[in-house]
């Protein structure tokens, strides 16, 4: 931002989450100004639109979003802001998980995500396709910046690769560990670090589990010796504490998004924190 010319060249981006915001910032560097439309603490499914979000959406040249059915509030916000930014659905480059309960579900199990599990940013490998899409989207608005974007992305991926090797080393001793999850947030993370998710405590967030579900879960955890419950800050503490007390398992609170915990300051720090917490808890 040394001269007015450079300021004028800044691409204004709105990302729907703090995780995408960080990936855009990593690729865009000085040539973009990016903000997240949501706080990581807020409930992604029921949200009221803030005036600031509308202003941001209206100003944005590029909108980067998780896609699928993650941002149910977004169409309303776009209409309200009368904004038509260039749209980047980051899920386009992702091999999705949990897609088999999609169109027709023969058994009426509750499932939150109709098009596949949306928490794909929790696999650090997925940063590769996402940032590739981001480079294209930014370059479409700022073609002179493409070289910078590509170079920034490569630098980011080098850092990512180095850390990924470290993370995998830290979690290698626990490969194949069976874990129970509070909500359906962790399939991508678990697959990357070779954890096996055996069951979900609260299949529909906000709907408490039935006594029978909970009873079967506790019995299974005891016989299989499952010792870890992965939770996020919004998980139902009382029920998890009950399950933990009955089974002797440990509740490990991981961070699902950048900024959801003070330690998770950016996208790579998010995995630093999660891997460290997981390794510490599983080592005990």
């Amino acid at each position, binding site marked *: 931002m040394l001269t007015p010319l450079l300021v004028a060249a800044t691409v204004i981006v709105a990302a729907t989450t703090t995780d995408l915001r960080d990936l855009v910032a990593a690729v865009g560097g000085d040539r973009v100004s990016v903000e997240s439309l949501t706080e990581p603490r807020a409930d992604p499914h029921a949200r009221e639109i803030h005036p600031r979000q509308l202003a941001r959406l209206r100003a944005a040249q590029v909108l980067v979003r998780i896609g699928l059915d993650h941002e149910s509030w977004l169409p309303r916000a776009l209409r309200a802001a009368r904004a038509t930014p260039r749209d980047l659905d980051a899920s386009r480059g992702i091999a999705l998980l949990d897609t*088999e309960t999609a169109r027709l579900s*023969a058994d009426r199990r509750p499932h939150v995500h109709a098009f596949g599990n949306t928490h794909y940013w929790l696999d650090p490998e997925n940063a590769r396709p996402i940032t590739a899409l981001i480079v294209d989207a930014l370059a479409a608005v700022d073609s002179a910046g493409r070289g910078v974007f590509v170079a920034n992305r490569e630098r980011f991926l080098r850092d990512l690769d180095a850390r990924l090797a470290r993370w995998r080393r830290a979690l290698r001793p626990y490969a194949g560990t069976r874990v129970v999850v509070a909500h359906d947030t962790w399939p991508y993370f678990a697959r990357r670090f070779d954890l096996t998710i055996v069951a979900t405590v609260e299949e529909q967030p906000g709907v408490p589990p*039935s*006594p029978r579900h909970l009873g079967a879960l506790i019995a299974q955890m005891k016989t299989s010796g499952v010792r870890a419950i992965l939770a996020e800050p919004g998980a139902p503490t009382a029920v998890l504490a009950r399950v933990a007390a009955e089974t002797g398992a440990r509740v490990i609170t991981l961070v699902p998004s950048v900024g959801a915990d003070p330690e998770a300051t950016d996208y790579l720090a998010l995995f630093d924190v999660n891997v460290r917490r997981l390794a510490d808890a599983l080592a005990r």
Partner: protein
Amino acid sequence: MTWDLLLLPLLACLVLTGIHAYLGLHVLARGVIFVDLALAQVAALGMTAALLAGHAPESNAAYAWALGFTVLGALLFALTRENTTRTPKDRPAPRNDVTRDREDRPATRNDVSRDREDRPGESGARNRWGGLGGAAGAPQLHQEAIIGIVYAVAAAVTVLVLDRVAQGGEQIKQLLVGSLLGVTRDDVVRLAGLYALVGALHWLCRRPLLSLSLGDDVRGARAWDFVFYLTFGLVVTSSVRIAGVLLVFSYLIVPAVIGTWLADTIARRLAIGWTVGVVASVAGLGASFVWDLPAGATVVAVFGALLALVAFARALARLVTRMRRDGRRALAGVGVGIGVVIALAGLALAALPHADHLWLDALERGIPRIQLAFLSDRERRVDAEARAAIAHGTGELAKLRALAADVRWGHRDLPAEERERLRQFLAGRDELVAGDRLVLATLRARARERQRFVLGLPLAVAGAVVALASLRGVRH
């Protein structure tokens, strides 16, 4: 095996029944139905303020904040009751007011002469006409209005504050939702102790507290009001933490309403209320186990069902009394109602055959011939095949799912490629079964198209005949 999971929740429910059925009688008599929601929300606001002050949600400091806000809320309600519904009595000559009002509005005469002066409804009505001039003539309000405002503002401010704190928003939400299955032994012991104390206090001070709630004159009414709202707020905020607002509201109001319907004295109403609470707790938790449902919501639904059952029984009893007096003419109104419903159902089937006709779905499930009669031989064959395929498919799915679960839990070993094959096979089977369900839905739509006039119009006519015949019974 898992029944013991329900032991603590059941104990918690029984503890809730004990105090809430009693406090509910007060709340009902005072006409402040939603005061528990408002106080719970005020406590949640206190908890949120504690977060803003830098305390952890589970800390003692946060609990103290919540308690402090509850005291303030109790004070507010005690004061506003004084200001909204008591002032007419404090005034030197309330009689004049009433008589003037009688002249103005003959319609309210009955209310005024029958009831005590300090009823909130009346004073509101009276003073709406009393002009706005001066303190004595200030317009009076229902206390429900104040309670509603406190609820809305506390909830909104909670949202505003939560927007500013980084940690703990979810805990606040859980504070209002509760978690019956997550209740611990310490929770139950603490609640039982606290409620025993509150119950003892209410027993010792039963005369002033009950008289006050029933609208009688009490010396030091303001102080007793404060005592009531304070103990009430204490109970509600503690209950909501484990049971959530919906369940607490049900424990408070439903037993009291049923007790008030069925008995006249406080003691009998309380006995009935306790019975209702115990029955709903046991039946609700049992149902939630048998039918695999969330516990808290099931208990609330059972409360609703119990209330409906009692209301139905009361209506039936009244009908029987009327029949004894008037003979069959008493049934005319019911006949008109049933006739109109049948006629409307028939008309709806004729007009919108593809809409959801739940009654017909249920009938066809019980008596499949109602649908099969409207299908051709070939269609009937397809129907039978699809049903067999669904039965076979769901059986197989259940077996394969159990296998997949066994693999996940580590009871059985399967190589990675076999696991993937199993996953794909499950997904495919799932779609096949869903496809067969679609076949059934298509056949049903075809049957509906044919049932439309053959079934719909006669039903409409029959219903109309029943209704008209009954209507003549009413007139005679």
